[in-house]
Each structure stands twice: as structure tokens, then as C-alpha cells.
């Protein structure tokens, strides 16, 4: 830690650093003895801290769930937008995309004429997912 602390809070943090260094250097036995001196029980104290971790894990999982729900909602919205596109126009756009990059889309080009509307929408969704085209089916600039 370099430099002179700029204010009282920084000064207190420096002191906390020294205290933490001491905690890290203390042996397990020393920590247990301290706890005993303070009238605390090792198992109970550890359990109380572990409970904080369990709570943190629940909150973190809840956050992940919310993120996942938001991603699903965004994906559904995109699918609905693509579903609303006219099948003839979507097929035409797909042809144009393939024509622009025939090597990349050889397989799709070969199957182009036998694809169902659903297949075509699926390909468009994939291309949107890959960021190659916009939701309205137009190629990205």
C-alpha cells in the first residue's frame, strides 16, 4: 500500500489493513483461543457466517434467474417479430442473404427451394441470433 492516506476514511482503512494482516497471520489455534476469550463458540460462530454465505448464494441464484428470464423474454420477442414477417418476403430476404455470401450459406442455398416457411423463419432467427441480420430480416450494415 503506497502513498499517504488523503483523509480520515483512508487512514482508518490503512489501520484495517494492518488488522487484517494480523488476522491472516494468526494461526488456527490463536483464532480459536481469541474466540474462547470473547466467550464465543467456534461451531456457532462458523455456522452464523456460513448462513451469510447461504443467503448470498440464494440472492445470487435469484439474480441469475432474473437474467435468464429476461433473456428468454427478449428471445421470445424476437421470435414473435420474425413470425410476423411475410413468408414470401422472408424467403426472398434469405435468398438475397445467401446470394451475398454463397460460400457461407452453401447448405442453405442447396436446400433453399425445399425449405418450409417454418424452416426459413428458423434460419432467419439463427442469423438474427448470430448478429448477421436485424430483426426485420434486413442485412446488418
Amino acid at each position, binding site marked *: 500500500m503506497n*502513498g499517504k492516506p488523503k483523509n*480520515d*476514511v483512508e487512514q482508518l482503512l490503512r489501520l484495517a489493513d494492518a*488488522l487484517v494482516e494480523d*488476522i491472516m497471520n*494468526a494461526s488456527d489455534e490463536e483464532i480459536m483461543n481469541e474466540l474462547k476469550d470473547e466467550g464465543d463458540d467456534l461451531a456457532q460462530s462458523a455456522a452464523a457466517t456460513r448462513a*451469510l454465505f447461504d443467503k448470498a448464494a440464494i440472492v*445470487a441464484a435469484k*439474480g441469475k434467474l432474473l437474467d435468464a428470464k429476461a433473456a428468454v423474454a427478449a428471445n421470445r420477442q424476437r421470435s414473435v417479430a420474425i413470425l410476423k414477417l411475410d413468408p414470401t418476403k422472408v424467403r426472398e430476404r434469405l435468398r438475397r442473404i445467401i446470394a451475398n455470401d454463397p460460400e457461407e450459406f452453401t447448405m442453405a442455398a442447396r436446400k433453399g427451394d425445399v425449405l418450409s416457411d417454418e424452416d426459413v423463419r428458423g434460419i432467419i432467427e439463427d442469423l438474427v441470433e448470430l448478429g448477421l441480420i436485424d430483426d426485420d430480416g434486413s442485412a446488418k450494415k
Partner: protein
Amino acid sequence: MAPGQNAPATSELTPAEAAAAIRTLTDVGWVRLRKIARAFALSRPADADDLLQRAMMRTLEGKRRCPRDVDIIKFLADVMRSIASDWAKARRRRPDHRAVPLEGGPDDPPIDPPEDRPDQEEQLIEAEEAARLRQRVIDLFADDVEAQVMVEGIMEGMEGEALRATTGLDKTAFASKRRQIRRQLDKTYPAGWKP
């Protein structure tokens, strides 16, 4: 990559690996973590438990990643320090910090953050509180000149040999005095330092 071949390990633990490392701490490890949280709990509205819980959440969410060669307790200590420092700096922008409530379901509306406009009066109060706390900590060792010199030296940014030379203590006595200071502060501020 050939089938069945493991992905190359990154230099940092994944959130799941960090969670596993925390979950398997010994009882003493958990206690050590709580003591560290107590040392860093400087911000007025937050206590040691808030700080520790927040540090663990950031780790589990992957917002902070533990390098593989760093002890998980040391890593969480660094995260707590960073959070404590941020809270102290940003109090005027985020005046209220407390543990996230666990009640309710995932469809509950997000927590409404408090007013975040800078408030000069609050900044002044904050600065006064820190100054008062600093003075109380120094006064706590009024009867022990060596401890007081050490506390003031540390707070002034001194460390290592320079600090030890100022106190006039040998290595063992210095370590013992630092321990004594910590234990005295622990007794005085059991839930974190309060002005």
C-alpha cells in the same frame, strides 16, 4: 478440442469453483472471514455482516474473480476492502447500504435505490464522523503510548521497518502489540467500527 478433453483452466476460479472453495472452509476459516469483515466495516450504515455478504455475492455472481493462486479468504478480504472503500467514497451518491432482503419471489419489483443526489450536509456529517472515529480509535490507546504511536503511524501510511523503528519495538514485540491493538478494537467495536 478432442472429445472428452477438458477445457484449459483459466487463471481465475469460475463462480462455481469459488463457491465450492468458500463452502468448504473450515470453522476457523469462517471465523477468520468474519473477523476480517469486522475490521473493514467502516461505513456507518453497514455492519460487518452486510460487508461480508456483499463480498460473497459479488464473487458468486462472477463480478469479482479469484485468481487460482490466491487464497479464497485473502481474496474475499480484498473484495471487502474494495467494497468498504467504495461505500465510504460513494456515500453521498448511495447513502444507504444494507443486506439485500431475501423475502419475496423472483417476480418482485427490483429494489428501489435511495435518492442519489449529492448532499453537502451529508458529506460534512460523513467527514465529521470519520474524524471522530479516527480520534476515538487513537484515544482508545491513551494509556499505551507504544500502541498509540503504532496506530497513528499506520494511519499516517507508515509500514514495514519504518513503522517498527518509530515504535522502537523488536519484531516479536511489534507483532504482539499489533495483535493487542486488534483485540482491543474487536472488543470495543464488535460489529464493525462505529463513530
